């Protein structure tokens, strides 16, 4: 081992120890290690088993579930759980888990990797398995569009990795073209599927390989489904592991995997089920017996904070967290509202699109299928926040009766209105970046 690598490990461990003493966790130790030895990652000796997870949505949930399954089955797992999605972060946590000789002590290294991170980090070491869950329009102001992300992920894929792919997402599945040994997961035809495409735009309309039109036998949601190119023959691949059923009764939800393993789940949102399936598949491929993987998942409740119940004066309500700049996540929340057959109201809050940056870009509002509210039994629609004018124009053109729509610059103003005037159950749809603005003025009860 090079002396520089040894020094880097030493310094990283010392700073990390000091930071821990002061109760601080950060990627600072890794930053110093990289300064001392820029290729420190290729100096570390990783365990035989390493798994990286990427995708537009659900990376963190999927990684946490894989970690849970592996740990419940007696493996020692190192993973970047602080969401330290930077090269400094991965250096920090790997050195933290390594001997002074640079040997990582855990049985498994698990990485949550966004595409830029993957391109950079995988230049130094190749994870054995690379899970790609989904690719869709997500924070395009920062990330770029799905095809752009696909090309960056493509740069991070090496011949010695085994890909674990979502067979139902054509853009993701196209990574498996001409790659022997690729593992696929996906869903069978489910009761909630549709035969026609729902949504404002269809990123599955044209083949990602030859750009000719594709046909779908059914859609699970958005462009996720059973597709086939009319020209080049690219089609949904048979799956190695499959979501065979998804059901909900009396508030108890359950999914079935591979036709025989029933897993109770807290909520059945279809894309959450894909995360579960991805975690199950990765664990089984990594050597966990299928029944054991399923059993571990059954006892696991994901603390997502995605749903909170609250009261606002006499009004009862539920907050559904979506992600701004991610129309798919909004569409899923809209489904929850529309599937509730009561008369209900909906508040949409877009106040700060991101906590990190200001942007005027509200174009993503036009990718969301707000038109679904038109035919639902909606009492009032309350539009709130700094972007309320953009929302107001969007809702006007969604063909929603303007008498139902109230527009407020401030969340407080919208809340006051609901408290005084509303006589129906209230759904609030917003993003992590805006949720406290409403949660701070209601009486809340966290349920998931």
């Amino acid at each position, binding site marked *: 081992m090079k002396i520089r690598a040894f020094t880097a490990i030493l310094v990283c461990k010392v700073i990390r120890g000091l930071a821990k003493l002061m109760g601080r966790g950060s990627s600072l130790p890794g930053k110093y290690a990289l300064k001392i030895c820029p290729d420190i990652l290729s100096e570390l000796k990783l365990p035989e088993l390493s798994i990286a997870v990427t995708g537009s949505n659900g990376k963190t949930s999927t990684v946490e579930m894989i970690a849970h399954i592996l740990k419940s089955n007696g493996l020692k797992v190192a993973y970047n759980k602080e969401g330290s999605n930077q090269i400094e972060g991965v250096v920090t946590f790997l050195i933290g888990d390594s001997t002074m000789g640079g040997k990582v002590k855990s049985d498994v290294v698990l990485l949550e990797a966004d595409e830029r991170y993957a391109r950079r980090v995988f230049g130094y070491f190749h994870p054995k398995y690379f899970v790609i869950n989904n690719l869709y*329009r997500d924070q*395009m*102001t*920062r990330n*770029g*569009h799905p*095809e*752009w992300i696909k*090309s*960056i992920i493509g740069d991070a894929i090496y011949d010695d990795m085994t890909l674990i792919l979502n067979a139902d997402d054509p853009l993701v599945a196209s990574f498996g073209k001409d790659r022997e040994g690729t593992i696929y997961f996906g869903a069978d035809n489910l009761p909630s599927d549709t035969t026609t495409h729902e949504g*404002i*735009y*269809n990123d599955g*309309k*044209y083949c990602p390989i030859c*750009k000719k*039109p594709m046909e779908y036998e059914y859609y699970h949601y958005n462009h996720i489904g059973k597709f086939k190119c009319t020209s080049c023959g690219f089609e949904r691949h048979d799956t190695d592991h499959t979501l065979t059923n998804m059901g909900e009764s009396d508030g108890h939800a359950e999914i079935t995997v591979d036709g025989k393993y029933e897993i109770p789940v807290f909520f059945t949102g279809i894309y959450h089920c894909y995360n579960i399936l991805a975690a199950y598949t990765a664990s089984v491929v990594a050597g966990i017996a299928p029944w054991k993987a399923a059993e571990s998942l059954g006892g696991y409740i994901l603390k997502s904070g995605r749903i909170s119940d609250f009261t606002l004066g006499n009004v009862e309500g539920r907050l559904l967290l979506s992600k701004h700049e991610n129309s798919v996540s909004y569409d899923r929340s809209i489904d929850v509202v529309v599937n509730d057959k009561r008369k209900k109201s909906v508040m949409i809050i877009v106040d700060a699109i991101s906590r990190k940056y*200001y*942007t*005027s*870009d*509200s*174009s*993503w*509002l*036009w*990718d969301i299928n707000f038109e679904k509210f038109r035919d639902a039994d909606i009492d009032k629609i309350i539009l709130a926040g*700094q972007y309320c*004018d*953009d929302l*107001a*124009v*969007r809702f*006007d*053109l969604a063909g929603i009766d303007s008498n139902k729509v109230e*527009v407020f610059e401030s969340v407080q103003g919208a809340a006051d209105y609901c408290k005084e005037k509303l006589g129906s159950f209230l759904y609030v749809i917003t993003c992590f970046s805006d949720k406290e603005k409403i949660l701070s003025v209601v009486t809340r009860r966290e349920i998931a």
Partner: protein
Amino acid sequence: MNVKILYLYPDFMSLYGDNGNVRILERRLKDQGFDVEIIKRTITDSAITFDDVDFVYMGSGFESNRNLVAKHLSQFKDGLVKAIDDGVPMLFTGNAYDVLGSSIMTPERDEIRCLGIFDFTVIDQIEKRFTGDVVLADTKKNDVYVGFVNRAGVLKGEGTLEFYVTKVIGSVPLTKDGVRKNNLLGVSLIGPLLLKNHKIAESFVKTICERKGTEYKEIRYPHSEKSHDKTKKALLNAEV
């Protein structure tokens, strides 16, 4: 009276909620008393005619899609050029107007021939995207436009470009942007820019009324105006 909007590649060039522009214009034309017919033509169509259309729109797409559009639309260049010369109002947003330039250089160094209506070229790369909020100055109309740019490349040929990029929040290495010829407008702003730039929407509606020989009715759209004012203020005040 009937107004025909030709919506080009609605399912192939629709990356940033571009449908909003057509819907905003449709709404405003209906408010003027027109019946609005939307004709959609896309990459699988073997003919695109510009005869009798009153407005043409095209939005942004994946770079690969835009490159295929450059080839596909070239087949119908004569009709398009005639319509531009006749003064048909048109709006090309985001990277849609790239196809009106002379060529696109892909990151793989393939040169894609474009329609050559304007004398600029596009040079794409794959290292990082150029994204950011921008303020554009239209010195001829003495107006200011606001919005967001999300591009894979830069434009060369500043001489033909129409607007000055007076402020950038983010990383957009452009000093000028946009093209104009008769009533055609091309601009890098993505998504429903007619929402945040109500004067552009108004100007298109006025032109359509004039060309149709009907009187333009003054109608205010307060949410659109407020959105423009708020955005402009936020962008001008933002520190870079």
